[in-house]
């Protein structure tokens, strides 16, 4: 049976923005549709409307020419619309089977047979009786997909499914999705990755700033054409000058770094060794949740370690806290800008004062030197082209890109010897990403070093001189970036180190 889904004049406004502006789309089964757009383009809002999580201000949805009223995800499921979210909602301590039968009224035995059939049919390599916590991200995603397939969906929505997958897992996912599509399931695939659109999808709908910009056949598009539609301008390409002759002047050396956490949600760090020379950028790839956050905190001093396990400029610093490490001109830019690197309820200059490098002297004699902090903040705003001049503005009113410029500026204005950053462009729009990338390249040009922990492999290939991968708290051998292929890096990220 053919499924058709029609979105007609959908609008949804939030207090500050129009998330969906009169969207019209017609989709038919047998094809994989890409919904392409940057963060904040309105793709998530649109699919949340399709899945009944939010209700539109205006507009209608038709399924097979019948009007659909979706007040909750329950209504969506009743109408055979399923969705796999970016973040999994599985009970870690329950087995795969237990997770799958939780919300079903079918008898357990018949359901188990049904699940087994699905697993055999699509070659999902999953043991029904293992606890979910022992599964890889890719396997967890398969469990989520099975959960949808049990309901025999007509429409399957996938929300940025590859953000947690390795290259190999992504390939497997694409094979499955193509099979589902052949069997008549209408697939809506949300992404901001252009390559995926080209390799997987049949048609592509591009969204920008709440509007539907275009819908076209993928065979008529190229990466460049999609990019300019998505961004609204032509994509500038940053390129790093890679010097053949890199210095052998060692700046930081990590020796047998270990961390055993008492928190079951943290990853243990196991025997990490690497070194970074002056002027170099070391990229650390990995799928999120493999110990990057713990490694970052150990490098920043939020988690302390054996004094000799981190040697900076021939001095052991493993026991120092972040404030003390800043004295050595090491700067840190955490992944989470809103809960880690800054406090949204505080003003710009107060957030700047969080990072008291010795040279800045914000708190002489224990007193707040407000004038000094404000002058310093003003300099950051100007030099790093943050879109405001008001240092009294609370940072919650800055956009993601401007906040990141402020925070990176806060780190860089004292020209540190080493910048340690974790997903510096996460969630930013293309303009801001471009700016941050250029800035990072500039640092290397000034013979300063970077440790770049990132889940974005494209970014890593673009910026790093040396590259390695982190998996379950262990780190692979370090390679010259030019010697590593995407496939090889994918294997490393998946833990196949040899």
């Amino acid at each position, binding site marked *: 049976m053919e499924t058709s889904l029609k979105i007609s004049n959908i609008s949804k406004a939030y*207090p*500050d923005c129009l998330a969906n502006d009169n969207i019209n789309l017609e989709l038919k089964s047998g094809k994989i549709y890409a919904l392409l757009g940057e963060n904040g383009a309105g793709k998530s809002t649109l699919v949340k409307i399709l899945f009944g999580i939010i209700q539109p201000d*205006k507009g*209608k949805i038709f399924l097979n020419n019948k*009007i659909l*009223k979706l007040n909750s995800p329950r209504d969506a499921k009743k109408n055979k619309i399923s969705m796999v979210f970016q973040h999994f909602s599985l009970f870690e301590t329950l087995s795969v089977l237990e997770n799958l039968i939780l919300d079903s009224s079918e008898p357990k035995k018949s359901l188990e047979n049904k699940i087994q059939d699905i697993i055999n049919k699509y070659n999902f390599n999953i043991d029904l009786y293992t606890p979910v916590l022992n599964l890889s991200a890719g396997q967890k995603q398969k469990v989520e997909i099975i959960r949808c397939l049990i309901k025999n969906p007509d429409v399957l929505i996938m929300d940025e499914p590859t953000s947690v997958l390795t290259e190999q897992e992504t390939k497997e996912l694409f094979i499955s999705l193509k099979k589902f599509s052949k069997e008549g399931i209408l697939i809506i695939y949300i992404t901001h990755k252009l390559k995926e659109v080209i390799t997987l999808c049949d048609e592509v709908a591009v969204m920008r700033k709440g509007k539907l910009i275009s819908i076209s056949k993928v065979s008529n598009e190229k990466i460049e054409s999609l990019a300019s539609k998505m961004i609204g301008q032509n994509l500038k390409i940053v390129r790093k000058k890679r010097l053949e002759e890199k210095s052998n002047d060692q700046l930081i050396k990590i020796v047998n770094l270990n961390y055993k956490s008492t928190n079951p949600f943290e990853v243990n760090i196991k025997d990490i060794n690497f070194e970074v020379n002056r002027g170099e950028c070391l990229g650390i790839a990995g799928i999120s949740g493999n110990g990057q956050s713990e490694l970052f905190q150990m490098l*920043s*001093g*939020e988690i302390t370690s054996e004094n000799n396990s981190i040697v900076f400029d021939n001095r052991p610093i493993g026991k120092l*806290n*972040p*404030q*003390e*490490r*800043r004295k050595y001109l090491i700067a*840190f830019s*955490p992944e989470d800008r809103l*809960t*880690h*690197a*800054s*406090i949204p*309820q*505080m003003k710009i200059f*107060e957030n700047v*004062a*969080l*990072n*008291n490098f010795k040279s800045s002297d914000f*708190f002489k004699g*224990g*007193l*707040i030197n407000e004038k000094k902090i404000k002058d310093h903040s003003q300099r950051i705003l100007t030099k790093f082209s943050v879109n405001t001049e008001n240092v009294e503005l*609370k940072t*919650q*009113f800055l956009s993601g890109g401007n906040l990141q410029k402020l925070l990176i500026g806060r780190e860089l204005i004292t020209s540190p010897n080493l910048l340690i950053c974790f997903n510096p462009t996460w969630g930013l729009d293309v303009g801001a990403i471009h700016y941050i990338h250029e800035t990072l390249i500039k640092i290397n040009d000034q013979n300063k070093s970077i440790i770049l922990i990132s889940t974005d492999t494209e970014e890593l290939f673009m910026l790093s001189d040396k590259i390695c991968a982190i998996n379950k708290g262990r780190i692979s051998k370090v390679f010259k970036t030019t010697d590593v292929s995407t496939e090889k890096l994918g294997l490393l990220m998946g833990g196949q180190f040899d």
Partner: protein
Amino acid sequence: MGSLIKIEKRNDISNSILLFSPVLAIILTLLSGAIIFYFLGFQPLEALKIFFIIPIADLYGFSELLLKATPLCIIAIGLSFCFKTNNWNIGAEGQLIFGGIVSGGVALLFYNQEGFFILPIIILTGALGGAIFALIPAILKTYFNTNEILTSLMLVYVAKLLLDYLVVGPWTNPEGFNFPETRMFSDSARMPLLFEGLRIHAGIFIALMLVALSWFIFFKTFLGFQMKVSGLSLKTARYAGYKGKKTILLVFIISGACAGLAGVGEITGPIGQLYREISPEYGFTAIIVTFLGRLNPIGIIFASLIVALTYLGAESAQIFLQVPKSIGQIFQGLILFFLLASDFLLYFKVKFLITQKKNEY
């Protein structure tokens, strides 16, 4: 579609709302107070007048208001250090009593001596006693991961029972016919009175000094900045490199010392000796004062005056209306309840809409 009232999250909290919310809470408290009095069979306006106006209508009444507001203000200033940094010290009452015990013990040592040095020693030991008693939950929290709400609260009863034991046992007045109380302190161990015939004493200056000092610390020092950051986000505080444990210990010491000082003020001021009930639960009531004052030193001054009035009003109501004194606690409870309810307005705005859309589908 078309709900009449729409509730939206606020993006930012404006200063006017921050002031408006306590005022609204007070108005609602008065309203519900009037209703309670009405059902008790009184003329509501008359009763409210007896409760809130009569007690402070003359100079003596006003001085009593300041006398009661002083310990509330001192304790609340200390608690604001804790609450600003998300340390829930509920045991100020115990710290007050323990400060009272220690300083009272010192005062008893000097019961038959005079000298200008006696009072300063008593004040210092009182602050020290409160600080040490507050350190117990602080150390338990930082090094043993216990919940400070429980430990600090339970320690209140430890202090109460200890005081009980001392005043009926070892410290009881040998010439006191076995009444559960100690000797009277010597005159040198008493807070100087400000006016002849009124009970108000020099402790009020301690309160005002603490207000000024805490304002300075909160808004002008690195320590205050660190406390603000730790209160808003511990993760960010760690990232900045602030020492979390040290801050916890410090704020408990400060609030314990303040509670201890309040205890000193009571026993060396109006009381002049130790007995079982040296505090009418000032330590608990001060929690209300702290929040009513928005954790802000200036706000705490006003809040302590308002809450002190409920103590006086309750006594006045007992005399003129023959209702139990506990009615004062009802008013304290109402204020806190309405304050927390009004705080809803801080984070959400309520919009009244005229229904326009009928149905879309």
